[in-house]
């Protein structure tokens, strides 16, 4: 597996720990369908968040969030609808939103984690 994929996996594990530490339950990870893949689905009492995790070793090639363009965002919303359709029993009246999590630095000991809620 390429180094960049290792980095991505490591980042997603860091993201899981981040959400667990804030009282979220992990509902799903690396869920795939025809439209693409969701990195992480987490939930608390009121909301379910579809999370896109972006990991960068340095910010030299741009901020991690800059890699989420308008097309990617559009697809994330599409994926959120498809995930909900496939997991009606898990949703239970909670609202769905799309979150972004940017990890900069070594995923094992990240320099900075930034969390954007409810991307529109």
């Amino acid at each position, binding site marked *: 597996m390429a180094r960049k994929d290792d980095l991505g996996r490591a980042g997603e594990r860091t993201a899981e720990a981040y959400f667990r530490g804030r009282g979220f339950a992990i509902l799903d990870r690396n869920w795939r369908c025809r439209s693409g893949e969701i990195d992480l689905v987490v939930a608390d009492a009121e909301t379910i968040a579809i999370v896109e995790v972006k990991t960068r070793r340095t910010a030299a090639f741009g*901020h991690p*969030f*800059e890699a*989420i363009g308008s097309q990617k*965002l559009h697809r994330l919303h599409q994926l959120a609808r498809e995930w909900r359709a496939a997991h009606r029993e898990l949703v239970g009246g909670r609202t769905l939103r799309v979150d*972004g999590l940017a990890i900069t630095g070594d995923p094992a000991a990240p320099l900075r984690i*930034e969390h*954007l*809620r409810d*991307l*529109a």
Partner: protein
Amino acid sequence: MSLARTWAISLVGIEGVAVEVEADLSDQLPDFRIIGLADKALGEASQRVRNACANSDVPLPSRRLTVNLSPASLPKHGSGFDLAIAVAALATQLPLSADALLRTAHIGELGLDGRIRPVPGILPAVVAAARAGLRTVVVPRANEDEAALVPGIAVVGATSLGDVLSRHGIDARLPDAEPVHARADQALAPEALDLADVVGQDDAVAALLVAAAGGHHLLMTGPPGAGKTMLARRLPGILPPLDDEAALAAASVRSLSGHAVTDLSRVPPFEAPHHSASAAALVGGGSRVPRPGAIVRASEGVLFLDEAAEFATNVLDALRQPLESGSITVHRAGYTASFPARFQLVLATNPCPCGNRGLRDAVCECPPQAVRRYRNRLSGPLLDRVDIELTLLRVGRVPEERGRMSSREGAALVRGARERAMRRLADTPWRRNVDVPGTWLRSGPGALPPAARAPLDRALARGTLTLRGYDRVLRIAWTLADLDGVPMPTPDHIGRALFLKRGTVS
């Protein structure tokens, strides 16, 4: 603080409008939006601002920045908003004083390295900032001298974005490069144009004095080489110097035309557009950005149309309305802009297409209808507004070197005459003889006794003078009296006025 505000100035014609620049930082994916009717140059500000901030070591936050330019319905153009946008955007996350930002207008274009580049139209923009009650205006260092001409507002000349931020108490990197200097304007050394250079045209010089003293529009007809252009170019030198308001208005127009303005010139402007000029070039135009035309640049000064009969007739007739109202309003699909256009019109024309008509030692080969057509290029309504019609001939002999009037002497005479006219017209809305309407001259408090008017009344009865011409002769007569320092025109003044109205000068 996720919301920050400061001020910039948008120019519509020569009028500036204070524009509130609000920046909002929201927790969304990185984006930079500028809303509020921005044009292409202004829309590209987001790129310049992002790079300038990064290169000043104060990168913009990687979140969504929305910049709103209010009033949102006013179309805005140009790159002068860059600095205000950058400061407002940075203030959403840096501890800049909100109060200080709200009392300050920021004007300037940013380079990618964070240096501030000069923009045109600083003078009217700073005037507008002062009028809007702002305390401080930050301008490009290259425009500082120009901005400092405006009283009642503190001017800060900044070299770079880092410089501006450090004045607000934020540490930022200053670019290594030299500050951007103003484009070196080839300073037009004021030519030494003295009235004393005019030889052998003493009567024409006297007529020029009358035109200057009363503000009368002037038409000079004469063969090539008679000195028409020479005379016209010496008119600004004998006009009274501009007062503060007029000087600021004239400088604002120069600034708007992209000239570097570093001092407030008191010399009335002189514009001499070429006869191929279009109506838009003369009155102003431009499809998106209103640009002042020649008559606007000549405002408070002299508009000289050499070879007036060679101008297109529609161009000449476009002058009629501004001559009447003293201003010009340019209407385009996207905007309406008003400019001042208080100019003194000086027309010069040849007597016929070949220019030889009326000369003793030359033959005019123009057919009569060509001459008539040539003269008719100047329409009746336009000539109606011209008080003095002067016919010049070539100088026939080399005159002796003695006692010619210098510009300094002429200016003193003109100033004296203007002061007398202003004292006489103190209770009226008019300041110069040319502004006074005919009814006031004929039947107002300043009407002449019948005895003094007798030669005029006879001419009117004979039909050699129209009523409008009658008024013009009266106006010139008053100016002549003012020049001579007498309280009321004498029959001699009336006679000379009749001569200037349609006279021949040898």
